[in-house]
């Protein structure tokens, strides 16, 4: 059940500071859209508006519409909690709940909606999700140990497992691999490839190879200078962006010998 997202006239603010300006784009269902751009251009900020996580920051607000299959996520009758349940998120920094065991971390989201989940189902779900995040083998013997005892990479994969477990329609990932080693990164990239047949996926990455490898479409953001809002420069098929971008700025950014 993938969903299409249409963004229109979107301005994003931190109190009075406009961090992102005039975004207009469409995120296609059953595909991977990558956001690239220099640090501070508002990739994370924009990503967070897609599941209304932006508004949990005091003073933060948006103008414009973000529509999922024609339903405005910011509509008056839409519940942000329901939005977030449909649009899952993996953060830049791994953030497992330190007070929960590994298994409980995976089940955290599931338990919200379905308190009485049978033990067998729970175990299956934990195993599936952890396998999906390529973490199962490393932690299968210590599912009841705290999640905070894992290494950074392991923690991030745990967070991915947690987000997958709720089976969202859209999955937002903010540099999910920046703390991962190549093996895990590969596994996640494989996973993304697998998931995109069913889900809409948006990923922020600094790694252009990664963007090129995993994404179908790529959006390039840039900002004119500090204190200026970030803007969407161009969005197109990944192949086009990396081979023949329309904008000079994109060309410049991509042609750097970046890793």
């Amino acid at each position: 059940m993938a969903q299409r997202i249409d963004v229109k006239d979107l301005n994003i603010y931190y109190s009075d500071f406009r961090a992102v300006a005039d975004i207009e784009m469409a995120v296609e269902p059953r595909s991977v859209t990558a956001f690239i751009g220099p640090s501070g251009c508002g990739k994370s900020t924009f990503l967070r508006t897609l599941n209304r996580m932006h508004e949990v920051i005091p003073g933060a607000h948006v103008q414009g519409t973000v529509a999922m299959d024609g339903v405005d996520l910011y509509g008056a009758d839409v519940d942000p909690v329901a939005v977030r349940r449909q649009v899952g998120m993996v953060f830049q920094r791994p953030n497992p709940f330190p007070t929960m065991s590994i298994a409980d971390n995976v089940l955290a989201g599931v338990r919200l909606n379905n308190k009485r989940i049978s033990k067998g189902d729970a175990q299956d779900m934990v195993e599936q999700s952890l396998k999906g995040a390529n973490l199962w083998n490393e932690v299968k013997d210590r599912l009841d140990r705290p999640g905070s005892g894992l290494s950074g990479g392991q923690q991030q994969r745990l967070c991915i497992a947690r987000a997958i477990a709720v089976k969202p329609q859209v999955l937002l990932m903010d540099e999910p691999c920046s703390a991962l080693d190549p093996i895990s990164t590969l596994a996640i990239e494989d996973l993304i490839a697998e998931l995109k047949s069913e889900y809409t996926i948006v990923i922020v990455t600094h790694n252009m190879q990664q963007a090129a490898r995993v994404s179908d479409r790529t959006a390039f953001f840039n900002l004119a200078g500090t204190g200026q809002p970030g803007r969407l420069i161009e969005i197109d098929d990944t192949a086009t962006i990396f081979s023949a971008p329309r904008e000079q700025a994109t060309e410049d950014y991509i042609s750097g010998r970046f890793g």
Partner: protein
Amino acid sequence: MTTIAPEAGSPQQGNPELRALLRQVDKKRHRVDRFMKGLVYLAFVLAVVPLVSVAWTVVSKGIERFNAYFLTHSMRGVYGGMDAGGVYHAIVGTIEITLFAALISVPIGLLTAIYLVEYGRGQLARSVTFFVDVMTGIPSIVAGLFAYALFAVFLGPGVRMGVVGSVALSVLMIPVVVRSSEEMLRLVPNELREAALALGVPRWLVVIKVVLRTAVAGLVTGIMISVARVIGETAPLLITVGVIDSINYNLFEGRMMTLPVYVYRQFQQGLVPCAPDQANCIATITYDRAWAGALTLILIVMLLNLVARLVTRFFAPKNFG
């Protein structure tokens, strides 16, 4: 700028199934959320009710005698139903004794908290943590008896002076300082300690300049709690400091008066028998003074809190949240 035009259609249309999904909140969860919100607000109101009631009682009964004269005069030579007497001597005593108690407790308490958080491992740390908790259970009057006995060993029986009271209050104050400071220090992220250590900063400077600095808001709150905890103590001060009706600035010699003792004693004296022909006699004078003294004490603590708040604001980490 090339963007794919969003699909036409007003937001009122769109996928009805999804629309339902996004609107249809789980009723029960929503209700729990609202209910808990209600409870949380209720909790607040519940706490405000006694506060308002206490404040109203003290202010309405104390305001009459609460004036400049009351604040600047002592009780020397005042007795019976005289329309005279103030709390200056008690203010002096309360402030000096409490500050000195803080002077003893805060360094010891803070250092102990630092020890527990930064260095403490093993048996000693476990014992300290444990016995600090036990220490919170020392009844105040026992602390007073202890301090009195301690000084009596060195200075002979009948010793009455401000410091003895300060020591008694310290016994009550230290565990509160330790406990609250410990909690606050533990909340300082390890990352910050490591960042500083990796810059070649010696441990003690890391503690002072990074850990304490980061936790300062919480620490000040904790210290204010501990001050508030002891500033209203009566029984231990009666035993250790005695009572006096004149001004005594010297913490190290002679009796002192403190506000809580003043309030308690005035209250305990009860009604004054006024002969009908006595013009200058107020039967309820002791109660009036007691309430005005209570008002003074509350205002002093509020003032201290306010200062602490300003200090906190000054030092607080200025982040965007």
